[in-house]
């Protein structure tokens, strides 16, 4: 299904910034031209130097679509990232940024069909928009989220995760309360996270006709795609967003 062109560049005012983890910040932005977004879409942020030099990068929208005129983006600070380091180190509330979007018509969830969400690290951002949409519309029954992070202090949106439809898997270090030892995401993690009733109904399948949304590094995406296929998700029902560097 197609989506319209992303429109022209527009100004946005930074309303607030929140330190999400040591290396990630969430920016709440007020748009001058409200344009409704779909969960999973992104915006491009463009910085312009006094001599006309520009640098732009794409950032996924973390917020649900229900607040016209406002979006939140979460940005990981990359060591050599000329845009992410500017956003982290220089931007304060009240600043004006130039934005274009929303963009993307493939890695989107429209809120009405079953969805399996699997995130690696900062890949949670577009999937969080989907989870928040489901929660706000009372359709949490349609989504299951599994997010894999290395350590507890690297989990974004920690006050909203885990939850009844969302579980967190730790690969290197677990919180004290965790019963699962630290380790890479395995088939049984997805089985437990995506099929929470599997213990009661051993023959239960994943939600029929669900679309799987996988977001993370390329290695993570390939690993999860393999696990999902082994769990019986048809290849054609798996949508992948891999990050390249977007510093």
């Amino acid at each position, binding site marked *: 299904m197609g989506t319209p062109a992303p429109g022209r560049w527009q100004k946005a005012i930074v309303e607030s910034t929140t330190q999400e983890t040591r290396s990630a910040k969430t920016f709440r932005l007020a748009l001058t031209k409200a344009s409704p977004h779909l969960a999973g879409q992104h915006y491009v942020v463009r910085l312009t*130097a006094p001599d006309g030099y520009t640098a*732009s990068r794409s950032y996924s929208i973390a917020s649900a679509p229900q607040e016209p005129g406002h979006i939140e983006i979460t940005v990981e600070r990359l060591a050599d990232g000329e845009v992410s380091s500017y956003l982290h180190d220089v931007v304060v509330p009240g600043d004006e940024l130039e934005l274009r979007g929303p963009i*993307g018509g493939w890695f989107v969830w429209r809120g009405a069909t079953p969805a399996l969400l699997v995130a690696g690290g900062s890949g949670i951002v577009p999937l969080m928009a989907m989870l928040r949409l489901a929660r706000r519309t009372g359709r949490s029954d349609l989504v299951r989220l599994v997010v894999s992070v290395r350590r507890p202090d690297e989990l974004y949106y920690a006050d909203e995760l885990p939850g009844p439809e969302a579980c967190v898997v730790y690969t290197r270090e677990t919180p004290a309360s965790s019963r699962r030892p630290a380790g890479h995401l395995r088939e049984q993690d997805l089985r437990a996270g995506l099929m929470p009733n599997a213990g009661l109904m051993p023959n239960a399948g994943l939600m029929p006709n669900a679309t799987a949304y996988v977001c993370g590094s390329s290695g993570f995406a*390939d690993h999860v795609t393999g696990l999902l296929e082994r769990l019986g998700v048809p*290849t054609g029902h798996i949508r992948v*967003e891999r990050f*390249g560097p977007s510093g």
Partner: protein
Amino acid sequence: MSFTRGFKGRGLSERDPRLPPGQYDIGSDWPVLTAEPTPELSTSSWTFVVEGLVRHRVTWTWEEIHSLAPDAYEGAIHCVTTWSKFGVHFAGVSVDTLLAAAEPLDSARFVVAWSHTGYTTNLPLEDVTGAKAWVVWEHEGSPLAAAHGGPARLLVPHLYFWKSAKWVAGLRLLDHDEPGFWEVNGYHDRGDPWLEQRYQGD
């Protein structure tokens, strides 16, 4: 033009004139950006087709396409996500060689490239003729990795890299433009990096 408070950007001396506007040099990395799972394609059943508005619909097997005149590209590639990569070397066959065998009709103006995965992308015919486009299976002297489109991908390096369809299966020649996978999702029908044709309407 308005400026971003406190943003200085790279000094003029750091700018590389080979970089199109809004792009940066990613160095030795080569990010993988694909919307689908990476397919495993066997070269024993691999085929490539040129069809549509041509005098002869031609299909090549893996061995047949390797028997055509070899050709290579060395230069830059530009991804719409703003990285560019220089000094990249690919080898395969020129699209000119493939089209010469199929003999395009005068009415052919556009091309849809499609992949074994179902991915599609559209291009003006003149962007894949005149030594500007290749089907490649070798990168830096080694077989092209599956994650980068192997066994073979389209290479149209003067346009943004989403036009260089991974796992390419064929070209269909048309008399009209038919937007492909990313193009119906808001991306530009041509995608010239020097004109920053990133999205529809640019």
